[in-house]
């Protein structure tokens, strides 16, 4: 009905937003009759939501007009931010920020570059930035999980690690079980996403492609492509960061220098 009344896309969007707003608020009014008072909170949340998402729309509008090479700067900024956020999960690990930025840059960055080179990710800024950001964000989460698990395992297993060192093991061998456990546990969300694809959830990217007119089969295949890339970027990032951590928590004489009181 609205599509017949409004011919401009902007007007149509505003009308659709108003319809969604009225529907949502009707639920609030209905709730009020049941003694649930969410009017003020819901109103503020909806107004805030529309302002934020329209602001993002303006950023995307600017992106659409920006040259393709500028996506490199945007992705680099995202990598630094991702490294900073995931480094907070590695409190007490020396050089955690540098390790995280390096790992996300090499892990997610190399997958983005390789896949862009192959043409799997379209080099246009409107494709590269959103898909790249998905890879970086997931690499960030995996990195945070891996570092957090590795840190807590090492602090909790100082006795076992130093026993191995005292028996003549090198740093690599002494922490190998904990490196493996941290990698495996950090990749569980990425593996479960792949495993449950299409059964438990239909991801947003596929829904977006369908809405924008892509063929369902291609949208489905591309969603798998994105999740596989996320797994690759996340796995590579976690591998690199745990390897870099190992180098930082041992002295050149294979002495464990990470301690609970430092973490």
């Amino acid at each position, binding site marked *: 009905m609205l599509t017949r009344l409004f011919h401009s896309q902007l007007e149509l969007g505003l009308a659709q937003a108003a319809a969604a707003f009225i529907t949502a608020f009707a639920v609030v009014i209905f709730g009020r009759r049941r003694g649930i008072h969410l009017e003020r909170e819901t109103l503020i949340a909806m107004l805030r939501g529309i302002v934020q998402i329209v602001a993002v729309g303006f950023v995307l509008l600017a992106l659409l007009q920006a040259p393709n090479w500028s996506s490199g700067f945007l992705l680099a900024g995202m990598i630094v931010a991702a490294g900073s956020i995931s480094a907070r999960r590695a409190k007490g690990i020396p050089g955690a920020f540098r390790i995280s930025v390096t790992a996300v840059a090499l892990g997610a960055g190399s997958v983005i570059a390789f896949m862009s080179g192959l043409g799997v990710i379209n080099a246009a800024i409107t494709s590269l930035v959103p898909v790249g950001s998905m890879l970086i964000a997931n690499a960030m989460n995996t990195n945070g999980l891996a570092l957090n698990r590795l840190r807590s395992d090492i602090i909790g297993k100082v*006795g*076992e690690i*130093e*026993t*191995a*060192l*005292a*028996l*003549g*093991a*090198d740093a690599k*061998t002494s922490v190998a079980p904990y490196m493996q456990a941290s990698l495996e546990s950090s990749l569980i969300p990425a593996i479960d996403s792949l495993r449950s694809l299409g059964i438990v959830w239909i991801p947003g990217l596929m829904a977006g492609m369908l809405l924008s007119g892509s063929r369902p089969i291609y949208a489905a295949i591309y969603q798998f492509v994105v999740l596989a890339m996320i797994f690759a970027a996340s796995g590579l990032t976690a591998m690199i960061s745990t390897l870099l951590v190992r180098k930082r928590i041992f*002295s050149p*004489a*294979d*002495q*464990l220098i990470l301690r609970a009181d430092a973490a």
Partner: protein
Amino acid sequence: MPENSAAILKADHLGRSVGTRILVEDINFEVPAGRVLAIAGPSGSGKTSLLRLLNRLDEPTAGTVYFEGFDYRAIAARELRRKIGLVTQRPFLFPGTVADNLRFGPAQRGESISVQNIDELLRRVGLEGYSSRTVTNLSGGEAQRVSFARTLANSPSVLLLDEPTSALDEESRVGVEAVIRNTVVDSNLTCVLVTHDMSQAVRLAQSALVLDSGRVARYGLITEVLHAY
């Protein structure tokens, strides 16, 4: 130093501090080959900190240790730790069987240990027939004996024992102390034994060093040190 024979292990103005906190300071002693030195002192006096410096699990911030006449910083850390074996207060056994634990040390050098050698090591610590047992089923005393045998599997020249009986009940303590006597004292293995039990020091060691607040309070023959108390 009370003995005249050549020292296999010598601490030379050894010290370690972390930030402004001094853990041990200006430690000097010698351990001749085949002798047992007991390190005693109250809790927090730096006994374990000193022991950790002797096989370079921690880095000295002052002085050094001479092992077989060489500054131990010139010896690769892994090789040094094999030659100066450590048995910790709590036996941190690796998951798997008793034999798996005994194989760990030699495997780090790419060597394997025969079934006969494993059986012989277990016989020496009084655990004959324990080879295929999983470590989760061991008592505290048995676990400490496995830890002992695991360190011996590396054929160390010097053995560092960090209060090896303090976490055990009386029966296990007597058993583990007998193992120490059989494998160290009777085999002339050089040993540094950290203990808070002076009577144990008398039973096992020929000389003693008493620490107080990270510094040497007494050092000499066990009888001389004991007389001072």
